[in-house]
């Protein structure tokens, strides 16, 4: 199949970028989207042009490293899929595909399709952990947790931190990402000990990183590759309000 690509090219953080046209002929419809970009890059290298830089790692849909806006949709037209799990059979022969980086004030573009998502790391560092003594692994069943709670916490923990929620949100809000970690911990007995500090610190850090407010449009859940529920945001709000009320 033939493809017409319009790809965002930007030299570095401080340079203005623009969309550049590329044409690919004879691409296999069973290629993944990233394999298609690899093919393009091979062509560019052979013609002494700079390859298009994009983030990727596992290419199995579980690491959260890849992620671009494809035709104005985070991770492309398929819902609940990462960019690496998207295949060219989802596009028509001869189609024009516009590829842009995930954008938000908190995600500065580093180069081409690569964005700096370190803001997420700083949010996690501000409270996305439980403080436990190191040493031998504790007995697994010493803290009772029922099956439903464990599953629910695991659903929240499934967030891969790709940033599609922020890119999809009109406000560039990181509420879904931050809340997934907060409610993951708040659901488990181990996380309950530090719940007040955690939510206040993480929300504080989220605000410091220049993410916007959540307006509950719920677009994040629709585009999230892991279908992280917006009810996590509701739980974050509950935890925040509770922590504010109980704060000494």
């Amino acid at each position: 199949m033939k493809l017409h690509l319009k790809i965002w090219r930007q030299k570095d953080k401080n340079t203005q970028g623009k969309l550049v046209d590329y044409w690919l002929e004879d691409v296999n419809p069973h290629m993944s989207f990233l394999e298609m970009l690899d093919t393009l890059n091979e062509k560019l290298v052979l013609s002494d042009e700079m390859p298009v830089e994009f983030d990727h790692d596992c290419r199995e849909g579980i690491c959260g490293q890849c992620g671009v806006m494809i035709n104005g949709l985070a991770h492309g037209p398929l819902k609940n899929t990462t960019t690496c799990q998207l295949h060219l059979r989802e596009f028509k022969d001869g189609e024009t595909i516009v590829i842009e980086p995930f954008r938000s004030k908190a995600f500065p573009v580093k180069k081409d399709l690569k964005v700096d998502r370190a803001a997420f790391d700083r949010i996690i560092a501000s409270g996305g952990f439980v403080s436990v003594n190191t040493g031998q692994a504790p007995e697994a069943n010493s803290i009772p947790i029922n099956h439903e709670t464990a599953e629910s916490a695991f659903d929240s923990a499934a967030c891969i931190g790709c940033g599609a929620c922020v890119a999809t949100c009109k406000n560039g809000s990181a509420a879904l990402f931050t809340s997934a970690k907060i409610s993951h911990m708040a659901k488990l007995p181990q996380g309950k000990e530090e719940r007040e500090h955690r939510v206040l610190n993480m929300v504080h850090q989220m605000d410091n990183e220049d993410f916007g407010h959540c307006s509950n449009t719920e677009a994040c859940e629709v585009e999230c590759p892991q279908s992280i529920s917006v009810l996590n945001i509701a739980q974050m709000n509950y935890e925040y309000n509770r922590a504010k009320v109980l704060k000494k």
Partner: protein
Amino acid sequence: MQSLTRKILMCLTGLFLCFFLIIHLLGNLQLFLPAKTAQLQFNAYSHFLSGNLFIKMVSYVLYASIILHALYALVITMKNKQSGGSYKTDNRGRASKWYSRNMGMLGTVLLVFLIIHFKNFWYEYKFGVLPMDANGNKDLYTLVVTTYQEGWYVVIYVIAMIALGYHLLHGFFSAIRTLGVFHPKFVRWIRYFGIGYSLMISLGFAIIPVYVYFLNAK
């Protein structure tokens, strides 16, 4: 102030306004009574409200809620505009409802409507000179009925109530989410309740001027 605290302020002022709308609508239902009874009863009701100290205190909370709700909406929207990204090709709209993304626009329509609405009735009742009815109360009823006989005002009213319906449809559910209700069952119930509430309020308010207009058009 943290983002979630700002949202809580939007939520509490919004919910107070939601509560006020119910009381306001219930009071307005008196306009459906036969003309003579409606005039005396509606005027007596208005007189009671304007003279009661408790209602006066509540009215200050109401004014403060409207102002704070609009001000914080402005602050939040400005911050959101800065934080959100923009794309050359943007199809993100598929993932959410248009009215949830345009609460600011709907709110602005409502604010403009409120200015007209306050000028027409609130200002005239408080500071204007109104004739008295048979019981010696200011005749707000006649002012309301004559205003509703002007077609353009009825159109503005109905457009504003459509905007109100959509604003409430997202706003009520969003406020409860900001409060932190995360139990799936209650979230579902609240969504249904919110739909019913928004329909009831917007239809209720919109029917009154249309009813008065056609009643007097005969």
